């Protein structure tokens, strides 16, 4: 498959770009909700608009009311979310949770998917346990209890967890903490007894929960997929979520870079535009080169995920690590080249730096994924 968008994808990119620039703009969404100290951290009105656009069900098959599209298309939406810093549960709900729910029974899909597609419900995923992403090790326990399970343990970095009508939880149903097998995924409803949220605002103004499960009783039909067979579904979620986060990161990098290059063309010092200084030109040109390479590998990885290629795991980690490098460079150079004004809250470039930091950490940072590239390459 060639590494460029086909006609339909190009059209989607155009409409996603227009939509996000109009409706998802920084002043209209990120600053608006942040400055009102919104406890959700995003706007429900925009989420309904996502539903009207069809974005909410982009990865879901048509029989579930979705658009039946793939990772490349989801990434197109995510890149625009990134470029506009649009606060949205899209990645958690429509990419990660939706990928899990695709593996659910008819009942499970019927219960949760229509309200997601409509842009009414928001879903979250609870994977991490601790401040670093280590999905190889899952200690959170779900023990058999009557016809169902009793869930005990803690989860961290559950993005938009407090706003979610349902949380997909990866828990251990057998084996020891570091076993590959013995994982089961559960759809835990918001009102489950014994689940408590400590919802915290993050550096990028998004909200994330520390969740404690204190013997939460779950029906057998809360299980997504097979008992003890959740690892494969979890891996599919992680692939989709990581490539998706990488695409959003490319958008963040693009937004920060465009802003910075524009600034170099406007700001005067020593009687001349600072963009005429070769010291800055070369750094901007190097940044451009890194961002282009990151964009290419994200598209490659997304195509491999869609094609269910055996190389998808490796290239997903390559993409996540490369974007962390490139987007990190984009926001750091962005703030530095803006000078003093880059340190002010009034100016948007700092918002890019904050978002990049949170996104980089989500589902594994550069160090985690570079290490994974080494392992998958056999060293």
């Amino acid at each position: 498959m060639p590494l460029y968008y086909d006609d339909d994808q190009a059209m989607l990119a155009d409409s996603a770009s227009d939509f996000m620039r109009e409706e998802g703009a920084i002043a209209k969404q990120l600053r608006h909700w942040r400055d009102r100290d919104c406890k959700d951290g995003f706007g429900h009105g925009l989420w309904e608009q996502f539903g009207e656009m069809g974005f909410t069900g982009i990865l879901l098959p048509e029989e579930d009311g979705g658009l039946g599209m793939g990772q490349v298309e989801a990434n197109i939406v995510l890149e625009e979310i990134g470029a506009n810093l649009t606060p949205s549960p899209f990645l958690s709900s429509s990419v990660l949770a939706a990928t899990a729910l695709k593996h659910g029974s008819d009942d499970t899909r019927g219960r949760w998917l229509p309200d997601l597609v409509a842009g009414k419900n928001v879903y979250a995923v609870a994977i991490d346990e601790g401040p670093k992403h280590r999905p190889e090790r899952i200690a959170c326990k779900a023990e058999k209890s009557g016809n169902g399970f009793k869930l005990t343990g803690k989860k961290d970095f559950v993005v938009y967890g407090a706003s979610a009508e349902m949380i997909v939880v990866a828990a251990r149903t057998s084996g020891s903490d570091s076993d590959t097998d013995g994982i089961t995924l559960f759809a835990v409803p918001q009102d489950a007894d014994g689940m408590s949220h400590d919802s915290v605002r993050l550096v990028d103004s998004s909200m994330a929960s520390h969740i404690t499960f204190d013997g939460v009783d779950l029906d057998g039909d809360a299980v997504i997929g097979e008992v003890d067979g959740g690892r494969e579904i979890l891996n599919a979620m992680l692939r989709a979520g990581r490539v998706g986060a990488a695409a959003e990161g490319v958008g963040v990098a693009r937004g920060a870079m465009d802003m910075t290059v524009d600034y170099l063309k406007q700001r005067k010092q020593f009687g001349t535009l600072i963009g005429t200084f070769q010291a800055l030109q070369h750094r901007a040109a190097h940044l451009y080169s890194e961002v282009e390479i990151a964009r290419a590998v994200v598209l490659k990885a997304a195509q491999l995920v869609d094609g269910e290629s055996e190389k998808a795991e490796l290239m997903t980690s390559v993409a996540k690590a490369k974007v962390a490098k490139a987007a990190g460079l984009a926001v750091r150079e962005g703030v530095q080249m803006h000078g003093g004004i880059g340190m002010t809250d009034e100016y948007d470039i700092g918002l890019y730096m904050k978002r990049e930091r949170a996104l980089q950490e989500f589902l594994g940072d550069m160090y985690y994924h570079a290490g994974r590239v080494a392992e998958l390459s056999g060293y």
Partner: protein
Amino acid sequence: MADLEQFRAETRSWLEANCPPEMREPVETDKDVYWGGRNATFKNDAQKAWFEACRDKGYTVPMWPKEYGGAGLSAPEAKVLREEMARINARPPLSSFGIWMLGPALLHFGTEGQKQRFLNEIARGEIRWCQGYSEPGSGSDLVSMQTYGEDKGDHWIVNGQKIWTSYADEADWIFCLVRTDKDNKYQGITFMLFDMAGDGVSTKPIKLISGNSPFCETFMDDVKVPKSYGEDVPAYVGEINRGWDVAKYLLGHEREMISATGGVDRASSLGAVTSRQGELDPVLRSEMALFDVDALAFTAMSEKFLDEVKIGKGHPAQPNMLKYAGTEMNKRRHELLMAAGGSRTLEWESEETENGKPARSWLRTKANSIEGGTSEIMLNVISKRILELPGA
């Protein structure tokens, strides 16, 4: 699509029948590369048989039209051929600056007569070309070159000196930038073609820090260059005094070529290869992993670039970015290879290292970001043409 699969099947069986096993081994030394030309010799019968089979099939230049010695393959067919050759590790049957550089310039700017003559000679490996661009006083600032051709009616008398002419001591003909109007910087250069066997041309190899001498100085001392080699075969490409257009076009090609070949060993992860030779220090292992991230990502970038070229998409200055990123990466790759190999890689003359191959290759890569436009020039071009920064 069905046609393409048919073509793949045919190509596969043709390669099976015609590519000798020896030609599926990795290229180890210069002698493993066949450059063609008047004085060319084959290393062995396998090299000869493989070259001749490809020549007769048009596969030395698969995408050139059949009448000029190519196979007339479409871009998708050529991709299939590349993939099938890569699958069995087939060596290129013929390498030459004629194929990579002069050929593309002639296809774009040449007259029908020039194409008939020169392209066929290149495709058939009969004439080996070298490139005369840089001069001792004109490196990055190429347009300041001084080699002068004095107009004598039906011929020029050329005087001057070129430097960094690759393999000039083994080349038959040279494509050479010659100033034909001293008052006009950009529109005073002619892209000339002439035989180096003529009077007044001499070459002197330059010994590099690697100990090898792939480049020469080339001296032109009252060289008589006729303006025409026969009907519709002028001795210059494009128009007189408009050689800079051809040179710029070609530099674009050169950058693509360097970025495509100088980039990465696509087949294998550097960390995987080096860790098989011995345990890597933990910090070095981390460096390898970060390198592999960059290298694999760059592979996707190269692939994207080639795909976009086929449909005429992508920014025309993009090759400068690929050249910059690819060559910087190759330098880093060899630094890591030296670090992983330890004191063994320091050996300059030993059987174990095939006479210092690691060290010589490491040193050779330092030229990657200098030749064909330095990294700094590439960054200048990106600043100006892509980012459109002021005063760039």
